[in-house]
């Protein structure tokens, strides 16, 4: 914890400090464009098979549409577009992660496939800053599991900086 706190993503980590009891972190692993990613498990409310989506004309580019989850209106974002990786057609494995954004709005995040819950000790996570400058600040760090790399995303940062949809049509 001490060495992580000196790094560039200390701010992001502190935001999650409440969820980090003990040395082991629970993350939900998933796939975007063939690569392994993970987010803090406590941020995910539910994992769903994507229901039919309704497109919202003139919304921001990363908005896939709207759906209803037991009466609750959910705005669905393409997490691949948020992160900036290649998209592909939905498959049997495509899933929707429900998360609560700041302000209470429930968002659905579309991912290519959901893996299992990963538990990583601190020794297994490298801070993003030690990996080179080209990582966005939405990357909290990189974990290693069985020799494979898992990019750990900071959803709070990722969702806070997305465009709100204003002026998309005119611009």
């Amino acid at each position, binding site marked *: 914890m001490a060495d992580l706190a000196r790094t560039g993503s200390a701010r992001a980590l502190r935001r999650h400090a409440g969820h980090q009891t003990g040395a082991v972190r629970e993350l939900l692993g998933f796939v975007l464009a063939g690569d392994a990613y993970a987010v803090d498990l406590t941020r995910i409310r539910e994992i769903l098979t994507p229901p*039919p989506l309704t497109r919202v004309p003139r919304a921001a580019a990363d908005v896939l549409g709207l759906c209803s989850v037991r009466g609750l209106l959910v705005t669905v974002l393409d997490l691949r577009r948020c992160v900036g990786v290649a998209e592909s057609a939905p498959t049997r494995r495509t899933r929707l992660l429900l998360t609560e*954004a700041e302000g209470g709005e429930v968002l659905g995040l579309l991912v290519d496939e959901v893996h299992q819950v990963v538990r990583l000790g601190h020794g297994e996570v490298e801070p993003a800053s030690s990996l080179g400058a080209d990582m966005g600040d939405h990357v909290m760090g990189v974990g290693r599991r069985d020799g494979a790399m898992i990019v750990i995303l900071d959803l709070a940062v990722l969702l806070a900086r997305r465009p709100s949809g204003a002026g998309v049509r005119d611009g």
Partner: protein
Amino acid sequence: MSDATDKVRDEFFSEAQEIIETLSRNLLALDAAQKAGATDPSLINEAFRAVHTLKGLAGLFGAARMGALSHRLEDVLDDLRLGRMDLDPVALDALFRSIDVFGAVLTAERKEDDAPLPAVDELLERLDQLGAAARRGQAPSSEYDLDPGLLAVLTEYEEHRLHANIEAGFALYRLRVQFELVSIDRALEEMKERAKRHGEIITYLPTGEAASADSIELDLLLASKRDLAALIGALGGDNVVIEPIPRRARSGGAHRPSVAPAGAAGRAQELASIPAAVEPVPAPSDPTLRSVTQTVRVDIRKLDSLMNTVGELAMVRSALHRVFERVRREGQRPLAAELQRLHRTFERRLAELQDGILEVRMVPLGQVFDRLARVVRQIGRELGKEIRLVITGAETEIDKLIVEELSDPLMHMIRNAIDHGIEAAERRASVGKPAVGTIALNAYQKGNHVMIEVEDDGRGIDEEALVSRAVSRGIVQAAEVPQLARSEILALIFVPGFSTRNEASDVSGRGFGMDIVKTNIAKLGGVIDIQSEPGIGTKLTITLPITLAIVSALLVRVADHVYALPLATVSEAIAFDPAGVRVVDRREVMTLRGATLQLCRLDRLFGLGARPGEAGGAPRRFVVVVNVGARRLGLIVDHLFGQQDIVIKALGASLASVKGFAGATELGDQRVGLVLDAASLIEEVLASHDAHRPEASLHG
């Protein structure tokens, strides 16, 4: 300090005196009209307004006795005004008595004499009796078993016609007619023409059920003195079902008392034979004490959650109806009939529940207006202008949430009117206007909307100054100026960046322009319009929905998307004729009954792309005419599905800036449909000059 207070008190007395004198004049005129055998509704209206102003004044100065008296008097006049009570000599006597009692109250107030005035209590009791007698006779429409949903959407005029017809002894019929969508325009006119010979069509509404996708079913409410057989002979046909609307099981006329103690039928008859005027009156009780003990404060969020439950029940209702349809198609008649009965009962009770909850949410606009009255006083003083504020329709009710949000925009509009509209006293004198400027604040209900007008008798808007400022700010190009219509010029004041801080005065400035007012009104689903005559005055009109909860909507398809359009904003749907489209000033328009209607191709606006097969034989499309306030727009859609009750859910914060939608709703098959926001579409398409420049949208 005490000098100022005395001065205000003096003003209060002289104004109250003046109003009472006006009231007295009105009553005398009413009496004369009554003796001549006619009742002039405008006189009753005037009396009502006078008493209403008196009530507001009494509230402002804490004159409780006067407030209580004018409040009760207002109720009685309201009953008279809306025809709930007849203006007979008994009522007139009580009204005349009020003039004397008001005089006595004023004298006592002036002497600061708090001794009880028996005359006040006596008159209050008399007015109570009148009111109680009136409430026993209900609105004439309650004699008929009319769908409350239908009653709720009648415009004031339609309601008036309904009552007039019932009072004239005509019977009500429901004509359920299937129209082909392609020809509905013409066919409906024909139907109306034919029906006119046999009675009066009071209103017509889509039922939301249609035999096929190419047809639409309408219910026409017809008042006629002919019997059913004659009407079937005259108007019947394959596509027309005529049914008499049953009267409620109740004998006797509207003015007979209908309340009887349970299980005392004999006694009820006895009571019924006693004329209303000498009926035993319930023991007088202290009205204020009662209202305190019988009122509960409710958090509006609790009402929201109840409303959500009702919304979910409405979906159950829709599902039930689909089951009924399926069972009927499968030919299981007895089961279908039973389901239909259940469905109807459910529908009726649900509507009652919904109305009940909505009613609780409603508060009179008077809540904001009272605050504005004080603002007017204060600003008038600051600017050294004498202003008379005339309020009508403060009793008009609207959703509590809307009222909360109205206060700031209205305050700003009034500030503007006093600051920029009303001229200084000398100037007014030189053009022959009364020295005291008048600001009228009028509210009334119109169908499912509430209209609020802020009108001043000031100098009006200087259009040339407006245009030159707009040009200097780069809002319009000098070359465009000659083409601007008057309404477009006036609308410039709503353009962001038009009014700026350095030109605004102390009062109306503060960096808060009319564009903010407009945005705030739009957030409530309303629109604002402006009219102005140089030298005569300016009128701003706000049109707002009554409530933000459940609405009936027309479902339409554009490309392969289903959208819901709240019916309150839909005036008609007609077949689209591409040959009738002309391009005027780069906008597509068509002619509808002699008037120009601007069109909006939703598929292009939303970038939905052409439907497969459009290139080939052009498919039939439709124009749905939406209107908000005086402005209308024709939305071109591919298909009409019919009507459905929907609960509008707000879009999440991440979609807050997406234009054109009021929210989303569940369509009942797990899919979500976007709800089009007619107000914002009209705004976007009609008002914006720049947004419609893309060449692609210009050719049919």
